Structures are given as C-alpha cells and as structure tokens.
C-alpha cells in the first residue's frame, strides 16, 4: 500500500514556539525555525516535509491550535 503523504501549515505569527508539536510528531517532521516571529518566538516548521504522514498529531497537541493539516490519500496519489 502506498504511503499517505501529509503536509502542515503553521500559522507562523501565532506560533509560540513551545515545541509541543515537534515533540508529538511521530515522524520527526517538525523542528524550530532559526528565525523568530514577530513575538520573538522560534516557530515550528516542517524541517523534513517528506516525512509527514498527515496524522494531525501536531495540530491536535498544539495548545494554540495554529496548525492546519492536509493529506493526500493513497488512492488519490495513484490518480495524480
């Protein structure tokens, strides 16, 4: 079975750089960005986008709910 592929969008300006999402991602997709956002936080970003499986863990565990998750299902992938 083909692997699910996912992607997340972090609302950078709203991210507080707490790292909870990074910790909770099963695939180590995420990391802190070196740069800081307007609030001075090192926000989360997809360091290894290829690893994301779109499981939504990061989004669910993000206390500030600033992550949106997308996923391409295997069957869809086939068609594409």
């Amino acid at each position, binding site marked *: 079975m083909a692997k699910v592929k996912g992607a997340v969008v972090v609302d950078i300006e709203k991210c507080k750089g707490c790292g909870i999402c990074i910790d909770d991602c099963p695939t180590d997709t995420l990391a802190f960005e070196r740069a800081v956002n307007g609030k001075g936080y090192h926000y989360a970003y997809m360091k290894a986008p290829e690893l994301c499986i779109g499981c939504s863990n990061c989004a669910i565990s993000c*206390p500030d709910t600033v992550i949106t998750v997308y996923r391409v299902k295997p069957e869809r992938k086939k068609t594409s």
Partner: protein
Amino acid sequence: MDVKEIIAKGDLVYEKTKVLTDKEMHYCPGCTHGTVHKAIAEVIEEMGIQEKTIGISPVGCSVFAYEYLHIDWQQAAHGRAPALATATKRLMPEKYVFTYQGDGDIASIGCAEAIHACNRGENILMIFINNGIYGMTGGQMAPTTLDGMKTATSPTGRTVEQNGYTLDLTKMIAPLPGVCYVARHSADTAAATRKLKRALKKGFENSMKNKGTSFVEVISTCNSGWKMSPVAANEWMRENMFPVFPLGTIKDE
C-alpha cells in the same frame, strides 16, 4: 508531491474548529489550558451543541476561557463555579452546563462547592485542570502540589510537616453516589487529547441523561510556574504527576 501540492490538492484533515475564536490565547507557550480548550471546543462542535452549552469559567489562568470558546460564558468568583453551574442547570435543564476550574480553584478555596455539587448529583460536567500550582497568581503552592515540589510559597519544596499532603480531590469525590462518571486524563499528546475528548463527550452526554455529575480531571502542566520548558514540563508531569494521579476511568455508572 511536494508540500504546496499536498496543501493545494490534498484533503484538509485538520483545521481549527469554529467553536474556537480567532483571538490569540494569552496563555504561556505550551500551556495545557490551550489544548483542553481545543478539546472542549471540538467536542461541542462534534456534538452540535454550541447553541445549548453554557461554560462557567473560574478565577485562574483560564478566567479568560470566554475569549477563546465561542459559547455563552459565566465568569465565577474564585472557587464558586459549581454553585453557578448548579443554579444554571436547574433553571435551564435543557442546556449543557460545564465548569472549568483549576486546582487552586476547585481543590482549595472551592472545595466545599465542588463536593456539594457532586454530592447533590448536579447534572453538569466538571472539568478540573490540575497543574499542581496556582498559575495565574505566579506559581504558588496548590493542594495538589506534589511533595517536595518548589513553588513561590514553598521555595525549598513542599513538606508534609508544614503543608500537609498532596490532595487527590478526584479520588475523594469519585465514591459519592451523585457522581456518575469520573475520569482522569492528560492533554500532553494528540493521543491523550483524543482520549480526553471521548471523556468530555461522555460527560456532556451524561448531563443530558440526568445521570448525575460527570467529573473529568486533566493532569496538566504549568511550565511557567514550574520554571521548565513546555516539553520538559510534559516530561516532568509524566514522570512525577502520573504516578500520584494515575490516569484512567475511575467510575462509569
């Protein structure tokens, strides 16, 4: 397929529920309150009860819960949320009424109100955010503070001699016949939060079946008060709080 493509063409599988407002939460980075708010909001959305739900917020960091959960709210005096909820539910039995209280709020100053609401079996859901400390006022000791834990009012660590024992309120109220459902969860991971959501849902459902009081404790962190990073706080919680406050369903009748 690269990220942009997935976003453009893929399915949206997770986005912020509309029951959460767009206001930026004032909580410290990584604070459990945010995650629990989300869990409640999602349950309300999934159950379709936004129009019929009244929240009672405490005095504590979550005093501003009304800024984030887009439902009607009553902001209670410190410790008294169960009293407000009692009247609200009795006067409007067709509504879903829940309280949201910190450990200082519910286990210290509001201990009597919590116990009596539970004992009367008010048909409400009580959500108890136990972060072992007074977050809002700057990290003082709570009844739930662990033995040896350093806080602003136990700077060299809580001692039994001076401060007594870590209070397990949930264990205390669970045997009360008025209480139909007691569960202890956490919200440190997505997995935990999913479980928490199921418990909250059950609590809301119970309240409409007039089964009595549902009581859901969330073992939480206050990384500011604990003076740790959010991730370290989660780890500390798992290592130190879970053994004292073991997770699980304690009662389900």
